[in-house]
């Protein structure tokens, strides 16, 4: 894959990372094998299915929902989902009157243990700016049309606080099991750009 814009060797990011990795390995600060294992975890084991299980439990278990809304970090940890970027979680509940939307305006803070790594658009400058300046416009681009009477609240994630949206349980799902309900919970619905899927 030719890269005509590439400068001298020292500006090639692949070489820069190799240099950094070599120095840190020599200092005993990292183990290359552990790096590979960590990448595998985030590529294949941690993802929005975790958050979907949390949401589905909250839909079927009022006591769990109460715990989730009052101490999200602890309630999420009941599933074993914790770790970096999972500390100090806050769950915000969508209702017929309020729709919540999550952004990180400064960079890309995101609840990794429940949602995995953020999608490309979440990290983009237009989303970071417009989720605050024009949240309804952003929602429309994701196909989410809300009545004017619904209040849209945007939550700015930081290094200290990370938000997860508890979407509304879709109508017509009374007979569904918790596992079936979890299938309706998408990543985007937990960021708040869409609603949960209809059954």
């Amino acid at each position: 894959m030719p890269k005509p814009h590439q400068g001298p060797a020292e500006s090639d990011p692949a070489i820069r990372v190799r240099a950094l990795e070599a120095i840190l390995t020599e200092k005993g600060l990292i183990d290359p094998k552990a790096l590979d294992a960590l990448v595998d975890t985030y590529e294949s084991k941690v993802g929005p299915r975790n958050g979907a299980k949390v949401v589905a439990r909250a839909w079927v278990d009022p006591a769990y929902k109460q715990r989730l809304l009052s101490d999200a970090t602890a309630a999420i940890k009941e599933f074993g989902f914790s770790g970096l970027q999972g500390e100090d979680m806050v769950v915000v509940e969508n209702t017929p009157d309020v729709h919540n939307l999550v952004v990180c305006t400064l960079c890309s803070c995101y609840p990794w243990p429940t949602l995995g790594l953020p999608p490309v658009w979440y990290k983009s400058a237009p989303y970071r700016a417009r989720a605050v300046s024009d949240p309804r416009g952003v929602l429309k681009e994701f196909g989410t049309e809300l009545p004017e009477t619904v209040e849209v609240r945007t939550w700015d994630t930081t290094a200290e606080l990370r938000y997860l949206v508890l979407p509304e349980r879709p109508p017509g799902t009374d007979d569904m099991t918790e596992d079936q309900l979890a299938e309706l919970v998408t990543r985007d619905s937990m960021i708040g750009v869409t609603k949960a899927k209809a059954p």
Partner: protein
Amino acid sequence: MDATPASPLLAKALPVTVDADVTFAEPWEAKAFAIIVKLAQAGCFTWGEWVECFSQEVAAATAVEAAGGRPKTYYEQWLSAAETLLVDKGVTSREQLLARRLAIGAAGPMHVMKT
């Protein structure tokens, strides 16, 4: 929208993507990501310190994009912030990084892309 956007970024169409995103486009991106996570877990710096350093890179890239320039990619920003923070923390130095890069570069193309 009833007002002129303050920044060209605000007027740009938002790419809407489906659930399946590529996490890392190239192996070095995954490596740069993992290095920072591991070092934070090892206590070399707090996550707050990392976010502060990374946010400055993101802000710089956002300004370049707003001015119509070609900003660094997300993981290029990540890598630059990683180098800055580790130099600030005294873990390595600019000189050490440069010397090692040149040594790797002199050894020939080690990262042959397989496509």
